[in-house]
């Protein structure tokens, strides 16, 4: 089994993930997210759906701590983001795996080195890391491309490398922005199976997608984002 480590329990003082009346604007521009409120509990699997430009990526960037909100409160793993120290934020980011829409692979590194990057950052043992990375790359079907650089990989292969990198540390929260966008249905469903397996061992998964087919094939609760407003179904409301 690929994922063995149980997820760390959240800190006692708050919800696993909590957004309260969060608003976001870039610089002096208009607000792109308005009054976003929701919470996620450990082990949940949820989608964020919405049309292009609705603010899905902005919401995810708040979740993986790439931005601070313009207003409102965000709690991650029981820590209040507004008051967390830089060292704490770095620690929290290590517990979040991110699949970026544009992959963000490093062109000068091989697929193997790209996937190993979070482990290098975490200071993992090199021999163990190598074995684990090989295992996960094999699982996503890239055993023959371990030492290929991103420039020589297809879009789908790059996406699989990006997904492998996001899950290599078995994060407590996995955030994915259109993770199956460049994949055919078969491979897309297979990777969704990987996410679900990760979710079964405790990782909370949040996927932004506009693929109704994906949702229909792998049904999980969905929150709908439209024009910066999040519609959370009653059963999921904070």
């Amino acid at each position, binding site marked *: 089994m690929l994922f063995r480590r149980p997820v760390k329990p959240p800190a006692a003082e708050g919800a696993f993930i909590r957004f309260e009346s969060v608003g976001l604007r870039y610089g002096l521009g208009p607000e792109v997210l308005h009054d976003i409120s929701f919470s996620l509990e450990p082990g949940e699997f949820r989608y964020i759906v919405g049309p292009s430009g609705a603010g899905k990526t902005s919401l995810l960037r708040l979740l*993986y701590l790439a931005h601070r909100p313009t207003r409102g409160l965000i709690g991650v793993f029981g820590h209040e983001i507004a008051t967390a120290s*830089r060292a704490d934020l*770095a620690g*929290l980011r290590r*517990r979040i795996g991110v699949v970026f829409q544009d992959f*963000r692979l490093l062109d000068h590194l091989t697929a193997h080195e790209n996937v190993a990057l979070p482990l290098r*950052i975490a200071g993992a043992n090199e021999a163990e890391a190598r074995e684990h990375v090989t295992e996960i790359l094999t699982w996503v079907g890239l055993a023959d491309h371990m030492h290929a650089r991103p420039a020589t990989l297809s879009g789908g292969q790059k996406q699989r490398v990006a997904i492998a990198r996001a899950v290599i540390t078995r994060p407590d929260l996995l955030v994915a922005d259109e993770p199956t966008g460049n994949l055919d249905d078969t491979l897309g469903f297979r990777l969704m199976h990987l996410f679900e397996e990760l979710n079964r061992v405790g990782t909370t998964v949040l996927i932004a997608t506009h693929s109704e087919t994906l949702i229909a094939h792998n049904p999980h609760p969905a929150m709908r984002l439209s024009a910066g407003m999040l519609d959370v179904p009653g059963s999921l409301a904070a």
Partner: protein
Amino acid sequence: MTRKRSPIVPLGRDAASRFLPVVFGLMVYLAGLSLAAVLVLSGAVEQISRQGIDVLTVEVPPDEAGETAERAARVLARLEASPDVAAAHLISDFEVRALLRPWLGADPLPDDLAIPRLIDVTLKPNAEITASALAESLAAEVPGVRIDDPKIWLDRLGTFGRSLALVAGIIAALVIAATAVMAVVSTRMAISVHRDLVELLHLMGGRDTFVARLFQFQAFRVGLIGGVIGAALAALTLLGLEQAGRRLDGLLFIEAGLDPIGFAAIGALPILTAALAMLTARMTALGALRRLP
């Protein structure tokens, strides 16, 4: 076979990074020469200040009647009687005229030209009398007697040497400051070029110190390579100058060369440069990273 891990940030691959060791090398070369100038000049100034003033020249001008021989004899007798004087030698009229020949020409000098008599005086070692005290004492006996005191000239030379050493020190400090500025600029440029990568490492939970370390090690490497090149060139230049200086042997009254400690200081420049570049790059990188959320 174990594959060598690629560096996380490919810092040595862009064009600017390839030229950096050369620029660092030039800076260290200039710093090395400036430092050598400071050391050599400081040493020379110290030698000058230690220089014993044991030889004086007493000048006995003619009196109103044009008489010098009797006046010179009185001064000579007075000097020979002094407990501080080891030897006093009256320079002959012939010798004085020979000394004047380069300025006044080889033609016979007119008889009515008032030529002073000169007396070379060698003071005893540890003589307590100063040139000015001796001049006063002689002038009291024979009015108009003057002493050419080399200490005044040596003091001026020492002051000039100290000024040159100060200027060289300022140049060395400016070059070191320029090296630090260059490390700042190159680190900022590298962070700017690799901004996406830096943000990615940040989002993956890389601590500021972890990311800064990637840049500071590169700065150390570049500083060390450039430092070794610059220090080696500076040492070669100094050795060449020393060789050229040896041909002046006997013409200089001081030993003006770089001692082994000076060469050791030049040899330490690469390490100091690398450490300076590393520290500066670290502070710059940490400053830039603090701007990320």
